């Protein structure tokens, strides 16, 4: 259940792909500000949790998976959505952290130092997401081990 780094992914990712994410991120941030200005912070705040780069990044993940399969002379039409689904499952766990981030920012921003609240909330976001990911893995691994023991017994 070790989480491993893979710097080779950076070499695989084209700078154009980061450019797409930069563009989407910038546009959504501008849109959130303009919506808040036009309709007030209550509506504008909804867009702080808009899935800004998720469609773009999931599509890029699927494209990389398809290209890997195509290099092995396979179509990758089944593998690509399966890999994107894995990415999306992780995102779902991250959204639970995002809810906690929102609660912390809501409660602590008016009374505490902004930088501290935002950095602390970001750390909590990561811890919540990572803990959920680890818990799911641990539950699945132990269930798999139980099934295996039963089969060998």
């Amino acid at each position, binding site marked *: 259940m070790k*989480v491993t780094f893979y710097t080779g*992914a*950076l070499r695989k*990712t084209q700078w154009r792909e*980061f450019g797409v*994410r*930069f563009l*989407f*991120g910038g*546009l*959504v*941030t*501008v849109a959130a*500000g303009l919506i*808040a200005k036009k309709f007030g*912070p*209550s509506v*504008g*705040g*909804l*867009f*702080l*949790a808009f*899935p*800004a*780069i*998720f*469609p773009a*990044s*999931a*599509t890029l*993940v*699927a494209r990389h998976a398809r290209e890997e399969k195509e290099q092995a002379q396979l179509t990758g039409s089944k593998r*690509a*959505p*399966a890999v994107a*689904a*894995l*990415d999306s*499952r*992780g*995102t*779902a*766990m*991250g*959204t639970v*952290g*995002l*809810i906690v*981030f929102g609660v912390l*920012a809501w*409660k602590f*921003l*008016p009374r505490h130092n*902004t930088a501290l609240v*935002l950095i602390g909330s970001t750390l909590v*976001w990561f811890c919540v*997401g*990572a803990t959920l*990911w680890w818990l799911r893995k641990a539950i699945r691994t132990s269930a798999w081990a139980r099934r295996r023991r039963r089969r060998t017994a």
Partner: protein
Amino acid sequence: MLKEILFRFLVGGALVSVFSLLGSLFKQRSFAGLFGAAPSVALATLSLTVRREGAPYASFEARSMIAGAAAFLVYACAVTLILARYRTSTLRTTATSLLLWLALSFAIWLAWLR
């Protein structure tokens, strides 16, 4: 006004790129996926809003963000289910499901925040 828009664009774009870069460093796909729900737009917007409009205004925005994040959770679960079960096109599935996020976040806003 134009200067502020440009500043927001640069800060938002930079934060989204940083989180996306961090996510691409992890080998496990599902762990890297966590960064798809990074609070990048929220960090950019809230820090700029506190400076311009004050902390209570930003706190009010953060309260609405909870509704958006809850809708994001349902959206991500729906996308996972559709992609895993039906193996549909990733772009089409993630893009059309954005309507689900929009409908749900406004429904939560109407029920809880209006």
